[in-house]
């Protein structure tokens, strides 16, 4: 059988120029020939030597840390950006869902948005018409079909958006992290729908941080690391391998254009379960003081399941502001997580850009034996330690 998708030695180079603004201005272009010093720019290979084949009906997971090249790979596969080197041969219609609701317009009604979005995703008008009732009933927004989208709640918009996408029938479907949003109930519905899709013999490429979803959906998985394929094998093998590797120490990371996360410490030395843990987060910024509107530390399990957030919105005034740094220091009282490894992430709203980084660091929490009896092994104990006290 011929592969439905062949990827040969794909590479993508970006040129990072250290211009003041993100885009070129004509003035910069015009003065360039007269500049004495060479313009600072460097090449950055987002992807190197990526080769793999996908056979019809397979579901392939793509995992890797932030910046490993997952999104770039998806963009090339969906023809949004061309590769610098290499070749892709696809034997079938590819539809990609890099986000749900692309092209949704607030002024258009739900009905109108279904048609426009469906068409963008590659559906023919006839297809949309025949599927229209199914799409609407899957989304559950029947009553608001002729209301402009701007009056929808964000949950309703999302449901409508996913419903359109769910009824795509391409030979190959590329999905990026779209399940990371929406309420749990709807997420389950979406995951179920995707399982149906893969069972019906279509090919899926699925990128996610949610390892359990990848395990559920994908037979084979590609692990990307720093732009190259680190491993490609059965999903369980790859996931286990991925989980064993600890995140290296925090490297500086850009949160928004002007603001970097420079350091994060979580506890000092060993962290024991149910203890009080000092934390500190350092951000550095250039030129102007950033406006912070949201700031939460997030704790995930290694499988990407969100355990808790530490909401710091009430403490902005307690942050320490210096001329180029913002320091957040404090204590987490009684960190009652079951022993094991957890991931630390950050949710932020800085200068009106809201974002999330999911894998800043991995922390290990040690057991804190408080009982005299033999403890159950951690896998039976869930994620939270609760203690019991006799009624007196």
């Amino acid at each position, binding site marked *: 059988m011929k592969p439905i998708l062949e990827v040969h030695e794909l*590479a993508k180079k*970006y040129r990072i120029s250290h211009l003041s603004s993100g*885009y*070129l*201005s*004509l*003035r910069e*272009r015009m003065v360039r020939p007269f500049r004495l010093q060479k313009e600072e720019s460097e090449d950055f290979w987002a992807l190197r030597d990526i080769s793999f084949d996908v056979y019809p009906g397979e579901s392939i997971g793509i995992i890797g840390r932030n910046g490993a090249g997952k999104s770039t790979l998806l*963009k*090339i596969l*969906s*023809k*949004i*950006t*061309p*590769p*610098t*080197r*290499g*070749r*892709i*041969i*696809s*034997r*079938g*219609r590819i539809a*990609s869902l*890099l*986000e749900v609701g*692309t*092209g949704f*317009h607030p*002024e*258009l009604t739900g009905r*109108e948005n279904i*048609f*426009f979005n469906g*068409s*963008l*995703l*590659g559906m*023919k*008008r006839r297809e949309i018409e025949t599927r229209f009732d199914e799409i609407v009933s899957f989304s559950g927004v029947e009553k608001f079909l002729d209301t*402009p989208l701007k009056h929808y709640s964000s949950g309703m918009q999302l449901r409508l958006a996913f419903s359109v996408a769910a009824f795509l029938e391409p*030979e190959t479907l590329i999905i990026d992290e779209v399940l990371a949003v929406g309420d749990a109930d709807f997420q389950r519905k979406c995951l179920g729908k995707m399982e149906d899709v893969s069972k019906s013999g279509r090919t899926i490429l699925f990128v996610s941080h949610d390892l359990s979803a990848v395990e559920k959906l994908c037979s084979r998985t590609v692990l990307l690391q720093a732009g190259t394929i680190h491993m490609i094998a059965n999903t369980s093998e790859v996931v286990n391998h991925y989980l064993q590797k600890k995140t290296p120490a925090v490297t500086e990371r850009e949160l928004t254009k002007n603001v970097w996360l420079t350091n994060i410490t979580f506890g000092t030395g060993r962290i024991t379960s149910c203890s009080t843990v000092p934390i500190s987060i350092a951000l550095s910024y250039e030129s102007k003081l950033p406006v912070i509107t949201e700031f939460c530390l997030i704790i995930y399990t290694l499988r990407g399941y969100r355990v808790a957030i530490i909401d710091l919105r009430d403490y902005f005034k307690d942050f320490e502001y210096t001329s180029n740094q913002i320091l957040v220091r404090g204590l987490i009282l009684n960190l009652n997580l079951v022993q094991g490894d957890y991931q630390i992430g950050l949710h932020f709203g800085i200068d009106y850009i809201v974002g999330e980084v999911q894998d800043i660091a991995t922390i290990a929490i040690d057991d804190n034996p408080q009982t005299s009896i033999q403890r159950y092994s951690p896998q039976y104990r869930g994620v939270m330690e609760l203690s019991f006290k006799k009624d007196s």
Partner: protein
Amino acid sequence: MKEHDEFVVDAEKRTLFDWQELWYYKELFYFFTWRDIKIKYKQTALGFLWAILQPLLMMIIFTVFFGRALGVPSQNLPYPVFVLSGLLLWNAFSSGLTSSANSMLNNAPIIKKIYFPRLIIPVSSILVALFDFIMSFALFIILLIFYKQPVSLNVFWCWPVALLITLIATLGPGCLLAALNVKYRDFRYIIPFLVQVLFFLTPVIYPVSVLKYPLLQYALVMSPMYAAVELFRYPLTGVEINVTFMFISLLAGVMILIVGLVYFKRTEDYFADFA
């Protein structure tokens, strides 16, 4: 498996235009145009009437200032008929040019997330302008009846051809500016200025014959819109068409079209990285 389903992305090989692919995506032209028309007139009390009101008001203003007050000649036509015949095509050109030049930036969120032939975006913006043209064309017909303006049979080829020239004249610079605008945001400020200058260079409110210097006339007919306006008026005025002028104007239009399309196509792949 259908043939269009198989595709190859190769870093080494690039085709200039894939007409087959454009044809495959034909419905998207319709959907983009349809969406833009809907959005344009949503939440306006008068809705589509604006497409008629705008040229009507401009016609009245020009008639008062140029026709009456300044006495600009109008090739033996009533001045309102003269100016509206020019404005019809001019508005299609200027609004098509402005919106197609900004279209890539306005649709950047879509460009970054979904693939389709990018040419669909500027072309659809021009089709929106064509829709407005059709609305205001109705106004023009009413005006012709009102003034009992005689029209020669040449309309049947002159008007469609003039419209076609307008579309070509819009598409060329529209694509060029759309692509440049993605790369250099400066063009956002250049475009309104450019349109304004072109307006005075195109014989919309005056006939070319008022210019006494032949050299100046040659400069003016470099504008592709010259051919469109002149041809559109021909069945009304009966004034002999200057074939040389016409040829220069058409040549300019075709050349800009080729430059625009080629530049657009060559930068198209990188829009998602730049936008």
